[in-house]
């Protein structure tokens, strides 16, 4: 135990903490200097992302309390990038009265996510979960003048704290079985112990907290109201970075912790384990998310329900298991996160210009802003899973590993067929939004064109480029994930 080592291994986290404290101080001393705060936050995030260069590629501190691995670093950088874009979007989000404070909370949430990723220890994972959760509750309810934002924050808090309680109880049951909170230790002692009821209950309860975080049905009920009511930037961050990190941890726990206790989710061949639990959740999410989204007339709510469906698709990779399954899940959740932040960026501009996010507010967007329309089209088509966009490639990858995983290639075919059916349904509602934007006509009172503010425009444009690049050259990300996993 050496504090110099600790400092060296937690360099990115430390950088973000320091940045958050500086931003908070500036915000407290001078409320008007929000531009400076944004600048400092962006700089801090960039420095944190580059600080991975000065760290060892892999290390393990205090028996898994803090683990540095290539894969973890990659996803910490992805979370930092998402936070970076969120900070850019926050610059002109009118719902945020005290921007410096908001940015500080956002950075605290980012630290939570980084801790979630970089720990193999249940206690640390729970701490990360709570740090993220508390920050996100604040962010969801940040607009103090809006009752819906308060509703969003409260709902998120109530559901979240209950889910956290379940997770904590589950972790305590696992601890009770094995006498350890270290993932690697548990994994190695599982060979000797059969699946005991107490342990099984522990796993299922621990999973609930993560299902809540990724908004998988039936733990998704907070999502529509939170996505709709919270400030755009908060919604974007909750929907993206928080999900990526949660999928990462979920995958780490079930695939690294209990790889042999999966059982089987094959059609007519269910075996007890965590796989059937995840499979049922995935199937429910796909159905509830897609059919729920069909009935929406507000783009934010639609994105919320579609997020439930996407969580369902992403879980398929975990059910398939193995390194390829994990990498499919990670690829899909990462590309999905970039897509969704971009979509929320466009939603934010539309909301500021028209005062709402219903379909009607998007009518004839193309004649107001061809740039935003092109970006939104890209994002929505990627979500719908059409080539040459990453959503398409991600689905191909997820479904192929799912089919490949079983002993017979038809073992998980039922889930894949269900997911494909869900995609078909989803095409309809994504196209409905696109139709309003591109085909719909409207008499405008003024002939002016909307120009998004510079930071917003930069963020949305950069995200569109990232999404297009990842679609045409998925290898950019996939090769890194695969190299880190092997």
């Amino acid at each position, binding site marked *: 135990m050496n504090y110099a080592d600790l400092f060296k291994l937690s360099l990115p986290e430390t950088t973000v903490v320091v940045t958050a404290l500086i931003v908070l101080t500036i915000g407290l001393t001078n409320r008007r200097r929000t531009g400076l705060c944004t600048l400092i936050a962006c700089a801090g995030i960039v420095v944190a992302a580059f600080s991975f260069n000065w760290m060892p590629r892999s290390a393990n501190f205090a028996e898994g309390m803090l683990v540095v691995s290539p894969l973890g670093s990659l996803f910490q950088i992805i979370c930092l990038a998402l936070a970076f874009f969120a900070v850019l979007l926050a610059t002109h989000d009118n719902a945020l009265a005290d921007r410096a404070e908001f940015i500080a909370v956002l950075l605290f949430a980012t630290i939570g996510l980084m801790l979630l990723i970089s720990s193999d220890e249940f206690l640390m994972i729970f701490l990360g979960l709570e740090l993220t959760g508390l920050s996100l509750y604040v962010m969801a309810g940040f607009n103090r003048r809006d009752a819906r934002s308060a509703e969003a924050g409260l709902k998120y808090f109530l559901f979240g704290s209950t889910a956290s309680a379940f997770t904590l109880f589950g972790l305590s049951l696992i601890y009770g079985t094995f006498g350890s909170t270290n993932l690697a230790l548990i994994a190695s002692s599982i060979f000797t112990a059969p699946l005991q009821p107490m342990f099984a209950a522990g796993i299922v309860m621990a999973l609930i907290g993560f299902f809540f975080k990724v908004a998988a049905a039936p733990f998704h009920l907070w999502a529509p109201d939170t996505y709709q009511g919270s400030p755009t930037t908060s919604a974007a961050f909750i929907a993206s970075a928080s999900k990526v990190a949660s999928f990462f941890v979920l995958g780490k726990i079930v695939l690294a912790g209990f790889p042999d206790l999966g059982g089987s989710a094959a059609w007519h061949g269910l075996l007890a384990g965590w796989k059937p639990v995840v499979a049922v959740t995935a199937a429910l999410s796909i159905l509830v998310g897609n059919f729920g989204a069909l009935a929406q007339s507000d783009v934010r709510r639609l994105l919320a329900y579609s997020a439930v469906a996407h969580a369902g698709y992403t879980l398929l990779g975990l059910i398939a298991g193995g390194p390829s399954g994990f990498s499919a899940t990670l690829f899909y959740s990462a590309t999905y996160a970039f897509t969704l932040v971009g979509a929320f960026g466009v939603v934010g501009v539309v909301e500021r210009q028209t005062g709402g996010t219903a379909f009607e507010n998007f009518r004839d967007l193309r004649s107001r802003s061809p740039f935003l329309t092109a970006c939104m089209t890209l994002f929505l088509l990627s979500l719908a899973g059409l080539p040459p966009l990453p959503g398409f490639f991600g689905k*191909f990858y997820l479904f192929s590993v799912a*089919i490949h995983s079983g002993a017979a290639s038809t073992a998980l075919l039922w889930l894949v067929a269900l997911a494909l059916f869900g995609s078909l349904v989803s*095409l309809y509602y994504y196209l409905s939004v696109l139709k309003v934007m591109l085909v719909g006509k409207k008499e405008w009172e003024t002939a002016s064109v909307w120009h998004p503010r510079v930071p917003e425009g930069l963020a949305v444009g950069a995200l569109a480029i990232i999404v297009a690049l990842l679609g045409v050259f998925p290898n950019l990300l996939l090769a890194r994930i695969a190299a880190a996993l092997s």
Partner: protein
Amino acid sequence: MIAWTIYSTFVGAFAVLLAPRTWSRPLALVAAFAGFFFSVEGFFSRTIDFAHFTTIVRLPWVPVLGMNYQLAVDGISVTLCLVTGITAVSSVLFSWDVQERPNEFFFWLLLVVGGSYGVFLSADLFLFFVFYELVIIPKYFLIATWGSTNREYGAMKLTLYSFFGGALVFIGILAAYVGAQKAGSLSPLDLQQLVHLRFPVELQNWAFPVLFLGFGVLAGMWPFHTWAPTGHVAAPTAGSMLLAGIVMKLGAYGALRVALNLFPQGFQMWRHWIAILAVIGIVYAAAVALRQRDLKFVIGYSSVSHMGFVLLGLAAATGLGLGGAVFQMFSHGVIGALLFAIVGRMIYPRTHTRDIYELSKFNLKVALPFAAVAFVIASAASMGIPGFSGFAAEISILIGTWTSYPVGVVITGIGMALVAAFTLRALKGAFFSDQPQVEPAAAVLPPITLPEKCGAILLMGVTLCAGVYPQLLFDRINPALRDFRLFHP
């Protein structure tokens, strides 16, 4: 060189999107012509080996998953690229009058064309599927934005059907991909390698029908054809031309290149069902067309009927049948595009009706003689009169099918009579009616414009050439077919 059909079209598409409004049409024409040029160059090339599916480009794309950017070409590919080029050029010519948002219009149009070239040239299953799905969304916007009757409904229906078919194709492709991985193949998506792999019979028996059904949806296979008539009617003229000319061929080509080639045993098991559905499609669609009053619906159903011939030719599993099927894809591509062009572009904007009985009041044979001549030629080709491309295609399909399904051929004969009946009915009703001219405005219909004439002459010339000298096509198609797995069990 033929790979440049894809690149020139996509580059053209983005150039059109970003160009000033007035440049969009000439640029689109240039892009379409460039693709056409490269496809003609490929068709008459002496360096391409028509007998084998030969790789022309191969670059690693996602090595972890064994995906390559791989293009290959044989006689079937060049034939279908040629029809794509012809349809692309003529559809741009026939949309010369698009005033509303021309940049976007030609952007989407060229995306459909470029994606289609990609499908016909792909030799990697994933790349094939990327191009195959790429075509879906442009179709939606083409129809929903610039379409006519009931356009949003037609567009959504067509898109969802295409996507549904795509989902089935997806499952079939995944089955092949995973099957090849389990068999230890190092390039589990390479079509040329997959062809030599013998998949387990159980896999073939369930994967083939899924895959074929998926392709069949896009090829207008009964009973999944219902998107075609409504989609064709809802589409703008260029959209109908692309749908009939190219998009339906994508399904048929996929069925031939992927489904038949990968799962020959599954095909042998299921081909009777394909033949039955094909024959029902031919007769049913022809019978429905006989009852339509809207000319576009007549042609839409005739497309379904003609695509039934393609499927019947595939089901025959003989060299003649398959060759005829490919010929019919080419032939119907040209004829279907010509028919839609005449009705959608030459007649409708001038008369503002497509109803056969309404049109009979215009005395079109006098008012629009060029359109009348073009329609006569297109109808003759569509009915399968000797000397036109339709005849060569259908006769070889029927002869090829005779040994396997004599009863099917006889029933198809009835279907051909129905085709002749509805074509003649449309021809007589719209152009050569006995009714006295009642519409006074008929005398001053605007004349046929130059781009329209050019497009129509191109299409008529091609159907005549292919009809008079079908050997030109068969010389390229048949050697390629001889190389198919089906004939080397």
